[in-house]
């Protein structure tokens, strides 16, 4: 799964730490998701989508091998 959290973060002018703080996770988690090293749980994905006021599908995308 891929995501455009980094883009969304830039649009909202947030650092990794800001975003981590807002959704109550560690900065490592944001970093790992942005590098596609970690697939977040449904709960965490929904929290991120809610924060950016976007549908889930506009932030997270399936890849061919998923």
């Amino acid at each position: 799964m891929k995501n455009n959290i980094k883009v969304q973060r830039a649009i909202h002018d947030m650092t990794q730490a800001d975003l981590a703080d807002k959704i109550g996770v560690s900065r490592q988690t944001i970093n790992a998701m942005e590098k596609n090293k970690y697939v977040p749980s449904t709960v965490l994905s929904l929290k991120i989508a809610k924060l950016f006021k976007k549908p889930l599908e506009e932030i997270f995308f399936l890849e061919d091998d998923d």
Partner: protein
Amino acid sequence: MKTNYLLPHKYKKLGWLLFLIGLIGGIVVSASNFESTGPSIKVLAIYSESFLNSKSHFFQIIENEIFDEIVSLFIIIGGLVVGFTKEKIEDEFIHKLRHESLVWAFIVNYIVLLFTIIFIYDMAFFDVLVYNMFTPLIFFIIRFNFLKLKSGDDEE
């Protein structure tokens, strides 16, 4: 994220203190070839067997040099506390790192043990068994902290 087996974050420092004191003590004990293990006190032995005549005893008060026991307790209790206290921010990704580190430590420990079973013999293998009491915890703690550090760097 809810968990039922992690201690509060505040115990982490205490855990590190016990763990590191234990490790230093362990190096001292093993550098002395497991001989500097005093002072000696009376302890309750549920089961004991003498090295010399291999007579076994149940539920007997015996004299024992307790430095090595204390060192073992420090390493194990300290190590468990370090490994199983919450991080400052405990979330699902940290959980995943902890679980992966545990599996990694378990497998690596047994691979190392297999290697020593094949290539290390006689009394030297006794040393292996002693170290092997602690290596799963030590491997786990090193791996977990390494992964945490690695995933924290290179922010963009």
